[in-house]
């Protein structure tokens, strides 16, 4: 991989492309309501952008964008957003995930559409975080001291 990583052209192209891919991912998430796409696909594409960056610039650099800590928070946040929406519906007297129970707009369909967007964003965040974390974990460690399983000591 080192050959590719050192190619200035590729590094530059990737640097330029990554934000655009991310933007496209956001578009896919929001566009899910009216065309193909949705939270899941968007999340995967966003994740792919970061994975691409990490492949070229190295995992350590990738972790500067999304550190383990951020990753952990993000992956939970997405689900909290989703399940929270469900619970919110319950608070307004509906069933779990019964969007139209929330009195956000007079038209229940409109409320549903908005909350579905929230849910899609939630999915997107979780998927993004988990995809990146999967890649970081599965790809080979870069430094020698990061050896996989030394004897572990309980603090």
């Amino acid at each position: 991989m080192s050959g590719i990583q050192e190619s200035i052209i590729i590094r530059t192209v990737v640097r330029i492309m990554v934000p655009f891919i991310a933007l496209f991912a956001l578009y896919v998430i929001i566009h899910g309501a009216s065309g193909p796409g949705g939270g899941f696909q968007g999340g995967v594409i966003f994740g792919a952008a970061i994975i691409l960056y990490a492949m070229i610039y190295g995992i350590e650099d990738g972790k500067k964008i999304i550190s383990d800590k951020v990753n952990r928070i993000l992956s939970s946040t997405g689900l909290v957003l989703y399940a929270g929406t469900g619970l919110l519906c319950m608070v307004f007297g509906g069933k779990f995930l019964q969007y139209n129970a929330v009195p956000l707009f007079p038209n229940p369909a409109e409320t549903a559409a908005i909350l579905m967007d929230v849910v899609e964003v939630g999915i997107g965040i979780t998927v993004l975080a988990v995809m990146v974390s999967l890649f970081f974990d599965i790809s080979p460690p870069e430094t020698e001291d990061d050896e996989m399983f030394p004897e572990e000591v309980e603090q």
Partner: protein
Amino acid sequence: MKILALFAVLLAGGMLLYAGQDLPAFGDQNSPAYQHPMTTRFIEESENETGVYNIVTALLANYRGYDTLGETTVIFTAGMAVILLLRRREL
């Protein structure tokens, strides 16, 4: 092992082919799956009820939103499982 595997595979394949004879023809508009009120309602009412054009999205995030919550949980679980398997430090 290979022979056993072949046998199992042929058994499963045979079952599928056997069942295939009674399967509704593909592309048939009169198939039970398409004629069931569920499908009909999704196609006709989803826009009014959920406010989105994409029926798949409407199903995914609204009618069967709970499945999707489960699906997201599966992803989260996979991430957690890989962390459990491959990380040596606490999260």
